[in-house]
Structure formats: structure tokens, C-alpha cells
């Protein structure tokens, strides 16, 4: 058994930041990640980190832009904390060694991005996420924190309503081990892999949210899923940073006509414009990067250029890039406060898997990475404080044996002739069709029925590979389970919100309804099914 004050589950930007800050606050820390930290999705974030560093900028202006993008669903206290701490965090990153782009005076260069009203986005080429992740990993290694890489968490352990740790399967040795901790921070990333195609990676399957949900935590604003407007539509979509629009790229319809000025619009509006252009025009839509110019493309968008060439065979200095809005990242997730605490004592959540009310119904471009480090640090500090206060709850010794039995069940018995990939593919297709950019009551009802039938089929599958070492059939099986659970929650939440706001658009409720719906949706697991609640937006 492993014992720590603070256990972090997930090795991306927010998890690493939380681990570093918990360690520096004096706690003993352990980190579990199902892939190596440098392979996590933080590596894919491109555009940059927002911070109100410029002389003509301020936390208030930053907050105003955040509220606008969030379509009035943001919790004010969280936004205030975030906009006030963003600059400090970004400066910290620079001091730890992030080689951000600089202006002529040698200061951090700030670029225009999305619907930010000022230039406030720090960036490192078009690989900001990856470079920030590397520096966080460097500092994580400096802290000598034990890191359990390629370990898959199979359950959270709750004792008397309190989270006391987790059980995980080591892929390399095939063994189940228990991880006892006083504070457990989930930083396990998003869940958009249940949209096919989407910009998700193979492992973006919402395991953290699913574990938290089953442990009694509430999932907030799950209907709010941000679609990214500029995605080259492969099965694992290749996203082009919105900074390209700010730099002069144009979105054109199949006739070559530029779609009305989209620069500076919030993401959900750009997505809807493209969606309508595709519906009305009857043809595809493309991104024209040529107006940016060869030099600037090479200088500022090297990764975009490289990947579109190797993956799509396109030369962005000459070719148009076919694009489509695709599901990108969740705004909703495990409900937390501004300190990262969930409703389950001992359990914290941060980053993509969490929802603390910062983003409301739409995330301002450039906020995500800043969010990961600001709240990562906070969650780490809070978790460390919690770990040293109060008596320690003992980790129930029988849990691992119970988990072994549960695991064994997945391998025993006759498997139906179905396939994981088939169920996943059908799920991915129905989510795109019925829970996409624009939803409707009837579509959501149908989706619910279809998901329930997929869950039924899933329950009749067994894991055929008997090994426990690098058994990716087993991990895929568990990941599909997480996706089915969360898909149902998303549909329930989407069905409940009878209005259109930000990322959630209803064909049958096309207007925003501030009278009834200036509230967050909450879904909790009660008696085996999802129960809905509303929580008013914090006026703060």
C-alpha cells in the first residue's frame, strides 16, 4: 500500500501544478497518471495563457471578457479570484523557465486571441501548452515527487462518506495497489472522446468525472461542451488555434466567399456561424491561412504547418484547410468551489475534469491553461492544508481484495459477440448527431434511449484478453464505461436546461432565459440513476 498526504490523479498541467504546490506546502505527495505526463492533452493546447499584464489592461477588464464569453453563467467570486491571480501565475511560469515569445523590450509578448478585448495572451509559438507542460514537469521532477506512470485508477475509496484514497492497476506489473491519502485531487482531464470525430485523444474518456460521480460528487454544467470552430475533421481532429483568425486567417464557404467577420467573436458564436453557413450553403467550409503570409506562418505557426503537412498532406501557404466545428473540451465537470473542494470530503478536482463556475456557458479563449495553473496551485495548497488538519481516516484493508473480485468479474463468463469499438463508434455518432452544437428535446430523449441500449450491450461484453500486463482491451473497456456514464449525464443536463445559453443551444428553446436559468445544472447519482438539481449563479 502507498501512503501520501496528498494523492494527485492525472499528470497534465493542472495535476503537476497541484502536486508541486502541495509538496511546497509541506505535504507528502504522490501522483498517478495513466500515461506519462508529457503525453497528456496539455501537450496539445496551442494558443496561449491569458494574463492582464499590459499597462492598459486590468483584472476587471479580464473579468468582463470572461463573463461575456460565459454568457452570464460565471460565478463572480471565482472569476475575481482567477483574474486577480492570473498574472502572478504566468510570471511564476516564466521564472521557472517557460521561454515565452518576447516583444522588442524583452518583456512577455501579448497577443490578441479569441474574444479578449485586449491583447493579453502570452504564448510560446503555437505550442504553448506543450512548452508549459514541459516546464511544469521539470519542476515536478525537481520536487522528487513519486510518480506512478501508466497506472490506471479503477476506483476511489470512500469510507463513512469521506474519500480516503484510490485503487489503481499498474499496467507494467499488472498488480492492483491501494493508495491511501488524506486529500485526493482529481486532475484527470476531459471526456469528449465520446464524440466521434472530436479533438479528443484516445484516452480523453472522463474516468475522473465518472469515478467522482460514483463516489457521490456532483457533476455541474455537463451540458456545456465547447466546440472548437477550426478543426480539420479526421477521427482524432486536428485543431488550428484561433490565434490564426486574430492573425488574419479567413473562414470561407465552398464558393470561396469569406464568412462575415468572425475575428474577436466568442467561440460558440463562430461555431454557430460556420454551422449555419454549412447548412445554408450546402457545402463545406475552409480556413484560408494564406493572408497571414509565409513568413508569419513559419514564424508563429510552425507546429500547425508541420502537423497539417504530415497528417493532412496540406501546405497552409498554398492550400485551403477544410474545417468543421467539432467537440473540443468540456466546460462542465466535477463541481468544486474556488479552492478545488468537491462535495465529498477529502476529494478535490481541478482542470478539465472540474467545474468551479469560472467559465459559465463558454470559456474565453486562452483561459484554460491559466485556469490549470491558478486553480492547480490553489487545489494543491488546499489539499495540503486539509491533509494536515484533523485525524486520519484509516484505509479499509479489505478494499483491494474486493477490487480484485470486481476486476475478475470483467474477465469471467461468456462475452457477447459485440465489440467495444462498435459500441464506441455508435455512441460517438449519436452524440455528434443529437448532442452537438444545437440540441432539441426530442433528439435528447432519443439519445437517452440509445445510450441506455448501448449500456445494456456494454454490460454483456467481457474482457477476452486474460493478461493484466499492458492489457489495453481492459483499459478500453473501463474507459468506455466512463464514457457511457458521462454521456447519459450530459444528455440529462442538456434536457434539463430549457434555454439557449453559450455552448448549449436548443432548437426548441432558442432564447436565453435569465428568469429561470441563471443557474448551474447539477447531476448526482442517487439510487443508480442521475438526479437533477439547479444551483443559482453566485452573485459574489
Amino acid at each position, binding site marked *: 500500500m502507498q501512503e501520501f498526504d496528498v494523492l494527485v490523479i492525472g499528470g497534465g498541467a493542472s495535476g503537476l501544478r497541484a502536486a508541486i504546490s502541495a509538496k511546497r506546502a509541506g505535504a507528502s505527495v504522490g501522483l498517478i497518471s495513466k500515461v506519462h505526463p508529457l*503525453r497528456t492533452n496539455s501537450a496539445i493546447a496551442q494558443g496561449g495563457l491569458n494574463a492582464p499584464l499590459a499597462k492598459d489592461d486590468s483584472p476587471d477588464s479580464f473579468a468582463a471578457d470572461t463573463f461575456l464569453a460565459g454568457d452570464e453563467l460565471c460565478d463572480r467570486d471565482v472569476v475575481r479570484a482567477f483574474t486577480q491571480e492570473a498574472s502572478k501565475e504566468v510570471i511564476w511560469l516564466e521564472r521557472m*523557465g517557460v521561454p515565452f515569445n518576447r516583444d522588442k523590450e524583452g518583456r512577455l509578448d501579448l497577443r490578441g486571441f479569441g474574444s479578449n478585448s485586449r491583447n493579453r495572451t502570452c504564448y*510560446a509559438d503555437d505550442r504553448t501548452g506543450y512548452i508549459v507542460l514541459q516546464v511544469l514537469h521539470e519542476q515536478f521532477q525537481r520536487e522528487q515527487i513519486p510518480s506512478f506512470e501508466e497506472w490506471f485508477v479503477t476506483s476511489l475509496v470512500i469510507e463513512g462518506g469521506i474519500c480516503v484514497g484510490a485503487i489503481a492497476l499498474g499496467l507494467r506489473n499488472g498488480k492492483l495497489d491501494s493508495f491511501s491519502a488524506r486529500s485526493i485531487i482529481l486532475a484527470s482531464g476531459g471526456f469528449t472522446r465520446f464524440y466521434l470525430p472530436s479533438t479528443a485523444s*484516445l*484516452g480523453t474518456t472522463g474516468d475522473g468525472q465518472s469515478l467522482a460521480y460514483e463516489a457521490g460528487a456532483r457533476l455541474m454544467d455537463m451540458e456545456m461542451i465547447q466546440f472548437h470552430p477550426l478543426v480539420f475533421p479526421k477521427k482524432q481532429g486536428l485543431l488550428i488555434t484561433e490565434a490564426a483568425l486574430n492573425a488574419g486567417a479567413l473562414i470561407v464557404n465552398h464558393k470561396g466567399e469569406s464568412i462575415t467577420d468572425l475575428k474577436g467573436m466568442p467561440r460558440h458564436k463562430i461555431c454557430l456561424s460556420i454551422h449555419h453557413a454549412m447548412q445554408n450553403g450546402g457545402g463545406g467550409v475552409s480556413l484560408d491561412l494564406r493572408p497571414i503570409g509565409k513568413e508569419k506562418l513559419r514564424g508563429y505557426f510552425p507546429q500547425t504547418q508541420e502537423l497539417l503537412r504530415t497528417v493532412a498532406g496540406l501546405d497552409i501557404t498554398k492550400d485551403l484547410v477544410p474545417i468543421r466545428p467539432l467537440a473540443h473540451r468540456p466546460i462542465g465537470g466535477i463541481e468544486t468551489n474556488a479552492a478545488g473542494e468537491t462535495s465529498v470530503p477529502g476529494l478535490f478536482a481541478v482542470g478539465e475534469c472540474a467545474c468551479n463556475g469560472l467559465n459559465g456557458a463558454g470559456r474565453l479563449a486562452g483561459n484554460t491553461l491559466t485556469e490549470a495553473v491558478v486553480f492547480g496551485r490553489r487545489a494543491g495548497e488546499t489539499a495540503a492544508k486539509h491533509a494536515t488538519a484533523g485525524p486520519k481516516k484509516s484505509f479499509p484493508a479489505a478494499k483491494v481484495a474486493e477490487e480484485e473480485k470486481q476486476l475478475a468479474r470483467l474477465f469471467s463468463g461468456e462475452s457477447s459477440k459485440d465489440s467495444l*469499438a462498435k459500441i464506441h463508434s455508435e455512441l460517438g455518432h449519436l452524440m455528434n448527431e443529437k448532442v452537438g452544437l444545437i440540441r432539441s428535446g426530442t433528439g435528447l430523449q432519443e439519445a437517452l434511449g440509445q445510450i441506455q441500449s448501448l449500456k445494456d450491450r456494454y454490460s454483456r461484453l467481457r474482457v477476452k484478453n486474460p493478461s493484466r500486463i499492458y492489457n489495453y482491451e481492459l483499459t478500453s473497456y473501463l474507459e468506455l464505461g466512463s464514457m457511457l456514464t458521462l454521456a447519459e449525464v450530459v444528455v440529462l443536463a442538456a434536457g434539463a436546461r430549457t434555454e439557449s445559453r453559450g455552448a448549449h443551444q436548443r432548437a426548441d428553446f432558442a432564447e436565453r432565459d435569465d428568469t429561470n436559468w441563471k443557474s448551474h445544472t447539477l447531476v448526482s447519482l442517487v439510487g443508480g440513476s442521475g438526479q437533477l438539481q439547479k444551483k443559482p449563479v453566485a452573485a459574489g
Partner: protein
Amino acid sequence: MEITFKVYRKDPEKDGKPGRSNYTLELAEDATVLDALLKIRDESDSTLSFRGCCGRGYCGECMMRVNGSARLACTAKVPDYTKKGPEISLDPLRNVPVIKDLVFDWDAFMWNKIKEVKPWLEPESSPVNGENLASEAEMQDLRKVMSCFYCGMCDEGCTVLPVDFKFLGPAALTKAYRLAFDPRNKDSREQVKIVEKPKGIWDCVHCYEADEHCPRGIEPTKRIVALRDRAFNSGITHEAVARHHASFASSVKESGWLDEGRLAVESEGLTNVKGLMKLLPTAAKALARGKAPIPYMHSKRPDADKIKKIFEKAEQEEK
């Protein structure tokens, strides 16, 4: 299109001996090798182990050999590999311990070596608010080096690693460069000291395979050479190889060509009696054949002064 994949197998839970499994399947025209592997695992053989993560060329995880050449499975388009026939062989990377099937030991191959170079910055603890001022040129160079996504291709192509797996390798040495050359690293001598030791920068044979293999143009060999220069300029040169370089350069600068006798003696070190004694048998043999160069009794070659000028000009430019 119907393609047959011949995939390397190894089962640590059975006899651990390498084998091969063949899978024939129907694939779409735009399928990648990773698409094929996922299909095999789902429809034919769920015991096949391979890694895949982002699925679109960002993360570096699915590196493997496709028809013998290292590349990412997720960006390897199947039709590119079937020009000679509908068969594709898949193997783990070369020179790496294999755990199971296509899953090899990234820790032994790379992550542990990176840990050895103390891969973090010691930040200046200055009371100044705000960011460190820095030039875009310096930051751009660091960003170039940090675009390394640990795909392992440089280490895979390295000609030293198959002979000596303990060599740190181009990936870890490039990481050391990133830290040694970051102006904000208070402790940049640390990395130079570490890589100047055995199995570090002096074990690179500058075959330039790393530069040929790197898909991002990071030029690991160039970075290793830069670390050597830094070692010289900082006075961190404990190894015989470093003395060898210094002696070689001095000799050519002064006389226009190599004083072999001097080279042998200075490489060992003028006060290294044990080392110098080791040279005696070779010196005796050379003397017997009339080929013994007497150290320091060495004539200048014609136009030696022109060669000296080249050195002086290069030294000027470096400043």
C-alpha cells in the same frame, strides 16, 4: 484495401521469446497504422499490446518501426507502406528493452536518462517583480529545443547506444542543453558538469544520425557540440577526450598540422604518470618501425601562419 500486418510479439508472462503474429484485415484508403492496430485489437486479437495516445502526431507515444523505419504509427499512412506489396511489418524501436509486443521500456530508453541530467531550472531568487527580461532570440532557440516531443527517433538512430546503452544519448543531452543555455537558470553549470562526465557529451561520435532522424530539425548533435564548447569555456574539462580536443586544436593552430606525439602525451595529461606509462609499449613499437613522433619536436608546415590566422579569425568571431 486488404493488408497483412506482421507484428512483433513478446509475452513476458510466457517464455518472453520474440515471435510474430500475422493479421490480415480490410482497411479504408486513408487508414493509418494506428487505425489498423486498433482494429486488430478490437476484432482479431485483444491480446496485442501497443501504445497510442493523441492519435494525430502531437505526443510521440506511438513510436514504432514500420517496415523497419522508426515513425509514429498515428501519422503513418498505410498506402505509403504497401507500394511493394500488401504486407507491413511492425516492430518496436531498435536498441530498446521490450516489455511486451510493441510496448517497449520508455523509462530505460529515455525518461530515466533525462532524469540523470537534473532536468529542471534553478530560478534566480530575485526580489524583482514581473518577468525576467529576455531576448526573443534566446527564447526562440529554447523554444526550438523544447519542441522536442520525446519521440525517441534521435536515440533510435544513434550509433553509440547499440554499443553502449549507458550513453546518455541525444535526447537527454539536448535536454541538458535546454537547461545549460537558459539564461534564467542560476545553476547552468550543473548540467554541464553532469554531461561532461563519462557516458555524456564526450561519448558522442558526431555521426550526425541524430540530426538526420529528428523530425523537428532540433539538431541534437549541434547541441552536444555547443555543450562541449560551453564545457571548455567554463573550464569544466575532466575527461581525457577534452584534453585530446584541446591538444589537437593547439597543435594545428601553432604548426598547421598535428603533433601526434604531443597529442598522445597531452591527452593522457602531463602529470598523469600512470597514463603516460601506458603509452610506452606503443611508443616503443612505433620507434622500432621508425614512426615515432617525438613530442614537441615538431616542424611547422608551409603556410602554417595562414592556418593560424583562420583560428584567430574564428576566435574573434566567437567573441
